[in-house]
């Protein structure tokens, strides 16, 4: 492959990649809302496991444990909740930047405890769509790119 073709190829692939990764997604204009989630925690899941909110929302979580002591913490948030069996614990916070944040059980509740997770989805799941776009780009680029 000629030199300028290589440059063109990578220039195009990288700029497309950047567009897919960084292009602003349409944001729905939302006034901040109150959101209430009643989460049932039982070994080894939260139900509901996915909490969809918008940036700026006032989120209240009521955690009810159905079997043993479970906890709840959220990646990127300095919050912590512990619910004894049969008891409800609750907290309120303001959803920050858009993105996906993993909910984790924070009290050792049994063998699979380290894998007891859920998700706080703030705004749309942009990352998944961008990732799918990048994957498509990677395949096309891979098929096109010929090594000399």
């Amino acid at each position: 492959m000629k030199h300028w073709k290589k440059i063109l190829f990578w220039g195009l692939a990288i700029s497309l990649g950047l567009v897919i990764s960084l292009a602003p997604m349409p944001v729905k204009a939302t006034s901040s809302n109150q959101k209430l989630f009643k989460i049932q925690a039982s070994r080894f899941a939260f139900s509901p496991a996915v909490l969809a909110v918008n940036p700026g929302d006032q989120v209240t979580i009521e955690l009810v444990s159905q079997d043993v002591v479970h906890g709840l913490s959220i990646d990127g948030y300095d919050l912590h909740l512990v619910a004894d069996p049969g008891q409800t614990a609750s907290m309120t916070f303001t959803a920050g930047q858009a993105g996906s944040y993993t909910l984790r059980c924070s009290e050792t509740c049994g063998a699979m405890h380290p894998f007891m997770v859920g998700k706080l989805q703030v705004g749309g799941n942009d990352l998944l769509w961008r990732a799918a776009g990048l994957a498509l780009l990677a395949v096309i680029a891979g098929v096109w790119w010929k090594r000399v």
Partner: protein
Amino acid sequence: MFAPGESRLNLARLRVLDKLIKSRWPLLLARSITLAGFVFTILVGLLGSPVGSHNFAIIFVWIAWWTALKLFFIPLGGRSWCSVCPLPMPGEWLQNGSLLTKAQKSIGLGMRWPRRLRGNWLASGLFLLIGIFSALTLTDARLTAWILLGLLGTAMLLSLIFERRAFCSYVCPIGGFTGIYAKTAPLEVRVIDSDICKSHAEKTCYTHCPWGVYPLAMRDSSQCGLCMECLRVCTYDNISLNLRPFGSDLGQTNSITRLDETLLALVMLSSALSFSAVFIGPWGWLKSAAYDVGSTAWWAYTGAYLALSLLVLPGLYTLAVWWSQKTGQAKAPFKRLLADYSQALLPLGLFTWIAFTIDFAFPKFSYVLQVLSDPFGWGWNLVGTSGVSLPSALLGAAPVLQVGAVVVGLFWSANLSQRLVAKQVQPARARRAILPLAGFSLLFSLTMLLLLLG
């Protein structure tokens, strides 16, 4: 240092490295350390806290070692882990009758490994077995310790019955995937001048190789344990340890059909999906099903995992190859294509496992610090790190890294498919013949992304 016209850098020419390699002591030292760590891990596994996340054995094997293997040893050094792996050591020492090199008289029957059991079939089977019991293994320190002991015992037994590293070459489930992924890695041991080898009747390298590999005949790095013994014993100093471009072993059409490697590559793909669903997904019922060994739910999980590994993914892959053969009118026999094209599953699988490991292990690194201070889970605080936890903001980068890994693997895989197809098909038909293969890789990656980020 570069051989003319070749993109290789012989590391053994660097004076410091040469000293380290040519002496047998540094390796023995490294092996003694891993073996001591291994024995300690087994002891803690048996005696320490039954709570997995507080037990050194669980955290060190499944978080620290696993991460190091997937993120460091394999992608950068291929089978480099195998050079210091403690599992085969006691057996090999017995077999050699010495710690350093082969004694004249060796212990053991020295039988040849049965022909029908060659290849990666057993390794695939054992990996599936680990997968079936994964939820239990990854959380139960006692079981982890017993598995390590079992592997150690099997390796020792096989060393005494069969010649050389029979366990590593044909049985070890870790060695299996490490071997096939080693083809992507930028490190290799190779002959420098093949003419010298051809005229050298003694073949000291071959007689001394613990793995029974003849360096001149090596078609790729999958069976080389990087112990460097050949560099030490070669009478003509004719062997090099090369830094090479990534994926140098890939993209050739092979003269032998190795469907065992194809199956193992597919098993690694299906296992990445299944492990992600169980350990990263939010589905509590699936976690319980995988954990409650013997229950109906567990049988259903086992059935689904085996079906995915042995029917669904192999079926889809076979379909893709068949379709590609039709549209491209490739001349080679179908089986050969199945085997050859499956090379493209290697970068795909390796990077998928990297993405999985980032999600699986990163959030649990604070456990590593904790068990360092309190290995048994008895409330000690040896180095003052028993209570630490990493700031959860650090985890923000993890998803981006995962996407990066999946995308790189996919690009590499698609590009490899393209090169492999180009060897089989007329240029005019090549583009269309790639589509089914690239489609398979894309479909797999999208599923993985959905599991990781969905």
